[in-house]
């Protein structure tokens, strides 16, 4: 499939208040295929939002001769309007105009894309229905719930029929019903040919939604690929979490260390294995203490790659 976005050797350095320099994005390179969903994962402060903002020309990347950002053939530094005109953006914060109603918010925004009032009116009705907000059309934004505001911002981003939808943590702080609704709608958009770029902290979101993901840490790309393949290639199938650590457990049960990988740096103690029966045997033999035996998921991989302790931004 054709690449819609190409990013090569892109960095972003901020000057902090004390005139120190801080590299938020460090030499990132990746491609995004057309009509795919591409996800950025990483702890707070990893540089996900900065990376996205450079793509839609909200931030300027560091000057560097061999750094490239190409979004449908345009460079955000040179042709910001061409990119913005074909992209819809859902920023991290809810920044609707609170004093005016849903329809007025959308009408004002449609003018930023040069839409006529008639086209905008029709499109607004369509999209409010799509996002299940039709009955809120004349309601003041300040009275909407968090989930409704989030959906409204997605409507706002879709007004001008963008080819590319950029979502910065679209479901943070929302309840499971709203999250699943948003996921379904995003899938529908993708099927209709929209390319989706998203950042998220929810591993299940990334796993369910994304064809490809990048895990970032401290501004750098750590790993890239399809979530299913990444999981299969980089982590055992099962994990046993033990809350109370028992010394020499494996030796006592006479279990060969080549079947089980022990991660004992942090609590809880995690035993990873591709062999379910081995972990089952350990779990059964535990005299006391809670345990949890399950399939490994993207979160385990994420923790393995980005560490369990907090960084200075978290």
């Amino acid at each position: 499939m054709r690449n819609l976005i190409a990013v090569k050797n892109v960095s972003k350095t901020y000057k902090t208040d004390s005139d120190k320099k801080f590299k938020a994005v460090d030499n990132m390179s990746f491609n995004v295929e057309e009509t795919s969903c591409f996800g950025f994962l990483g702890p707070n402060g990893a540089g996900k939002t900065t990376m996205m903002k450079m793509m839609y020309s909200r931030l300027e990347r560091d000057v560097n001769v061999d750094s490239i950002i190409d979004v449908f053939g345009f460079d955000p530094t040179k042709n910001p309007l061409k990119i913005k005109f074909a992209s819809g953006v859902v920023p991290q914060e809810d920044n609707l105009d609170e004093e005016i109603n849903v329809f007025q918010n959308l009408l004002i925004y449609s003018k930023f894309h040069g839409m006529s009032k008639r086209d905008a009116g029709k499109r607004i009705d369509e999209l409010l229905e799509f996002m299940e907000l039709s009955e809120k059309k004349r309601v003041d934004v300040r009275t909407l719930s968090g989930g409704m505001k989030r959906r409204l911002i997605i409507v706002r981003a879709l007004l001008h029929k963008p080819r590319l939808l950029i979502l910065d943590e679209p479901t943070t702080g929302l309840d499971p019903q709203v999250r699943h609704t948003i996921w379904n709608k995003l899938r529908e958009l993708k099927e209709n040919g929209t390319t989706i770029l998203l950042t998220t902290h929810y591993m299940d979101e990334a796993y369910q939604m994304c064809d490809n993901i990048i895990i970032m840490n401290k501004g750098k790309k750590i790993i890239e690929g399809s979530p299913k393949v990444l999981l299969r290639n980089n982590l055992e199938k099962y994990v046993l979490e033990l809350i109370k650590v028992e010394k020499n457990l494996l030796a006592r049960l006479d279990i060969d260390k080549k079947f089980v990988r022990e991660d004992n740096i942090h609590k809880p103690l995690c035993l990873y294995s591709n062999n379910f029966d081995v972990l089952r045997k350990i779990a059964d033999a535990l005299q006391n203490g809670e345990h949890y035996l399950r399939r490994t998921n993207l979160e385990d991989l994420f923790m393995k790659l980005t560490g369990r302790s907090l960084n200075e931004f978290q």
Partner: protein
Amino acid sequence: MNFNSLDTVQPKIFLRLYSVWYRHFRVYTKNIVSNGIPPFIKPLIFLAGMGLGLGGYILDIENMSYIQYLAIGLPLSSAVFAATFECSIGTFIRLEFAKTYDSMLTGSLSIENLFIGEIIWAGTKSAFYLSAVLFVLLVCHVIPMKATILFTPAIGFIVGVMFAPLSLIFMSFVKSINTLDFYLTGMIMPMLMFSGIIFPIANLPKWMQVIIEIFPLVHAVNIERALCTSSFMVSLIWDLMYCVIFTLVATYIAVRRIKKRLMY
């Protein structure tokens, strides 16, 4: 439903500037009662204070009563405040708290479009403020009606587009909203005091007059006084040129500064 076809044409520059103006206009007029009435009340308070109080103690200035002299200057101070607040505190709130610009800049707008549109809106607001104050003063016969007075809203607009970028430049350096007080007391208050609004500057020491000439407000005051009294001098061409050049230079610097703050 069709999600993915570009069947609209990318908006031209005029439409982009208008869309910014329209956003500010709609949000401002949403609360038209609370937003629109104060400019009409201000001159009434002034009239009460001057007419009943202070005015009687002060001698005539430039062949008119002091209250009339001051009344001609008063609409300009309203225009100055309208643009100054819009583009200092207003801009700071939109930038840091409401995150309005983050949402606007996801539309088909460049940073240049956004802030030039905002400056034009500030000009409109200043024109409205000036007109409202002048209207009350005319209705109350404080200022005699002259045909040329009908052109004064244009001066309101000019004051707006001069003070909006000036405020944006200061705002671009500000990290905390409290710092804006330096600008209001250090820059705006002296200008309002020493630009021929409250008293003529002709009697001030020469060196002070030279400094005053550098600042924008005195030139707008000269034009406004000429329009209100229908007495014109050749030097007004210089005043008008100053206003135009100041607006262009200040806008250029303001947009550059803001762009640096937003994008780097």
